[in-house]
């Protein structure tokens, strides 16, 4: 057994002393084995992963148990000797490569730093090894790739460079902490393939932390499900996916199955929003070129595409924050003035927005009551009792108890609750149209599903139309009526969900769908065999 974590307890410093966040967790990793750790945020996955390096983040402390790495209990060692293990025997790959590289150093110099510190290889050997790894990971021009600076390569390439760097000292174990969460599906698949390839060729063991089940199914030999700092279930990947033993595990698996019941859309009347030949951009650059599509009354239109495809720019054009250079946008058949400042109060009220990051979408210094009262007063002139009644009704609608939550600050709410307040703020304006910008992508799957159900329910009750910006195909399948596929600022395909997706009508839609990880553990293997990874990863 390479790594044997026994009854590990970790505590966090809180207002009143230390509170446990890991309650005696076991984790075994054999040589060459890949173990997947999954669970919602706050489950203690990252804390457990870092414990494999004998490391506790600031404000945390080890309170019991053992971390035996290749016969040595890391927790008993003084910090200096623990450091000798890190990088050389155990390496760590963080979620954000951009934040983990020093922007002032070339990639190759950073690669060679670890071997130099640990005296495992001289400069020439490390450089040769780096080139070998860069080539194995399908990075462009592996001979000279390392001479670039971090800002000169794409996000997916940088993430692969970080995986290569973790391997610089040929460690026995690598901890991957959500390495592809911040990437597009088409980029993610390239990184996944690179990690898989690197793990297989070097025979290193790995702990793979993620909240995406489909990803972990591709990477891991064995999966451990965690919740609230405890182990829920631990089983080989195939058995875990085919026959999960615990209710909680089954609920995680079931989230992906959420489908909104099919419904008949009210026909005939003019579309809520109609976009005609809109071209828009920043300074000299056109981000959108001749984008046209409609959002029918009471419908949900999903706009999908990778980052940089112009999804969010379309939203900014509709809201008036980025006036289009050409083309027009109409609300209920009446053209909207291009600039926000030229629009009337009613036009502003009709178009509302829900943001991706609920953390930055709510003012941390205002109570929930203040946040929700303002649009009620501003648009509808509600005060006193009438406003209080409407506040309570809104809170009921988003399924949060008014008495418990109205006087809290956003910092005292969970991520999902904050997102619900974001929805309530949009609903407070009594809008006709809401732009949902990646509203579920920062949330765990269970919480995200709750938000999707809530949005569907609200639509059934109020008949509001949604434009749903997302890069997640599972979300599109769950709630969309119509789909618009965008790439490079152009509309590739649009139409009813079934027409666009089943089967994919446009070549790019096909590529997009093929890059979405499936629950089937053989999916990535098949995709690699098809030889389409390098192309998708570029």
């Amino acid at each position, binding site marked *: 057994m390479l790594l044997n974590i026994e009854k590990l307890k970790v505590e966090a410093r809180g207002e009143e002393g230390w509170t446990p966040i890991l309650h005696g967790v076991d984790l075994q990793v054999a040589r060459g084995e890949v173990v997947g750790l999954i669970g919602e945020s706050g489950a203690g996955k990252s804390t457990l992963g870092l414990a494999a390096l004998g490391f506790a983040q600031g404000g945390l402390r080890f309170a019991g148990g053992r971390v035996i790495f290749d016969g040595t209990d890391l927790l008993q060692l003084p910090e200096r000797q623990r450091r000798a293990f890190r990088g050389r025997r155990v390496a760590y790959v963080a979620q954000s490569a951009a934040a983990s590289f020093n922007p002032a150093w070339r990639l190759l110099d950073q690669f060679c730093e670890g071997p130099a510190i640990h005296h495992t290889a001289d400069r020439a050997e490390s450089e040769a090894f780096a080139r070998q790894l860069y080539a194995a990971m399908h990075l462009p021009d592996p001979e000279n790739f390392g001479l670039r600076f971090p800002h000169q390569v794409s996000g997916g390439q940088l993430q692969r460079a970080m995986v290569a760097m973790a391997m610089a000292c040929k460690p026995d174990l690598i901890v991957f902490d959500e390495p592809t969460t911040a990437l597009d599906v088409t980029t993610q698949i390239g990184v996944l393939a690179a990690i898989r390839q690197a793990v297989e060729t070097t025979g290193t063991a790995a702990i793979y932390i993620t909240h995406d089940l489909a990803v972990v199914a591709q990477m891991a030999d064995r999966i451990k499900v965690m919740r609230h700092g405890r182990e829920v279930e631990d089983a080989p990947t195939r058995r875990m996916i085919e026959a999960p033993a615990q209710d909680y595990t089954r609920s995680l698996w079931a989230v992906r199955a959420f489908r909104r019941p099919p419904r008949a859309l009210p026909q005939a009347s003019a579309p809520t929003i109609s976009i005609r030949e809109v071209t828009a951009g920043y300074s000299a650059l056109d981000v959108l070129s001749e984008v046209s599509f409609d959002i029918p009354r009471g419908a949900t239109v999903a706009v999908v595409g990778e980052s940089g495809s112009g999804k969010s720019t379309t939203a900014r054009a509709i*809201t*008036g*924050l980025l006036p289009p250079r050409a083309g027009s946008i109409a609300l209920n058949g009446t053209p909207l003035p291009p600039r*926000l400042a030229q*629009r009337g*109060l009613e036009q*502003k009220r009709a*178009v*509302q*927005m829900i*943001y991706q*990051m609920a953390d*930055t*979408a*709510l*003012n*941390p*210094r*205002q109570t929930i009551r203040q946040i929700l009262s*303002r*649009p009620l007063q*501003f*648009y509808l002139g509600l005060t006193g009792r009438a406003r209080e009644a409407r506040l309570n009704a809104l809170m009921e609608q988003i399924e949060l108890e008014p008495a418990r939550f109205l006087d809290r600050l956003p910092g005292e709410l969970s991520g999902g609750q904050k997102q619900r307040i974001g929805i309530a*703020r949009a609903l407070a*304006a009594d809008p006709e149209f809401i732009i949902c910008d990646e509203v579920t992508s920062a949330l765990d799957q269970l919480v995200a599903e709750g938000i999707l159900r809530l949005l569907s329910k609200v639509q059934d009750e109020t008949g509001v139309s949604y434009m749903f910006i997302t890069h997640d195909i599972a979300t599109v399948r769950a709630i969309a009526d119509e789909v618009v596929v965008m790439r490079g600022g152009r509309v590739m395909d649009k139409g009813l969900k079934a027409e666009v997706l089943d089967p994919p009508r446009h070549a790019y839609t096909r590529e997009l769908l093929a890059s979405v990880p499936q629950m089937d553990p053989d999916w990535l293997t098949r995709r690699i065999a098809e030889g389409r990874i390098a192309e998708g990863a570029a």
Partner: protein
Amino acid sequence: MIRMLKTMPSTAILGVLVIAAYAVIALFAPLLAPHAEAQIVGAQFEPWSAAYPLGTDTLGRDMLSRLIWGARNTVGVALVTTALAFGIGAISGLLAAALGGWVDLALSRLVDVLMAVPALILTLLALSALGPGVANLVVVVAILDSTRVFRLARATAMNVMVMDYVEAAQLRGEGTWWIISREVLPNISAPLIAEFGLRFCFVFLTISALSFLGLGLPPPMADWGAMVRDNAALITFGDITPLMPAACIAVLTVSVNFVVDWMLHRASGLKD
């Protein structure tokens, strides 16, 4: 409030107590001081005695009384000046961040020009041109100090302006005033309050320095900086009396900094 006191470090408690003591002395100066501010009570440079606890100064005025009156003058003028500097600096900084474009460009360049000249020289120049006097002193020092406040307010406000909740307010159709006062200001208040403490110390020292140079508060007003200068001759004779006003300045400055350090610590904790 009680919980806040409990978590306060001892240095901050000491600082708060000293500041409170200064405030009481400044407020009740007429009751506390044994003699009037400019009253000549004895001979020049009398030694410490029961009648004159800290002796008399170069004109035969009671040292202790002038120290007490000086608290009112020096601290009061510094407080008014700092408040004015913050009013000008914070509002223009917030406007520059919120409006951007030409407003931001014009205000920022103006501030750059003011900051390009050493502050003390510019102050001396302005005061020589306008003539000494409390009003001139307050306005000149406040305007020059507001440039620092402007830069802090603008920089912190710009970080807040890019937040989604500000965009949400803009989309709702809120005016500039609402966005500045409700969305941005509460989120930059912590660094601004901390800066207020620091700025207060600097203004305090600037006014004392100007008084020492003869361009501060006009005589016969008691002012700690001027008191050091007037009685400096005594130091030659090994008398520590002239250092008393300097000590008053030092103690208040250190105390304010203790409190400011604690506030900065709390402010950085809030960001987590």
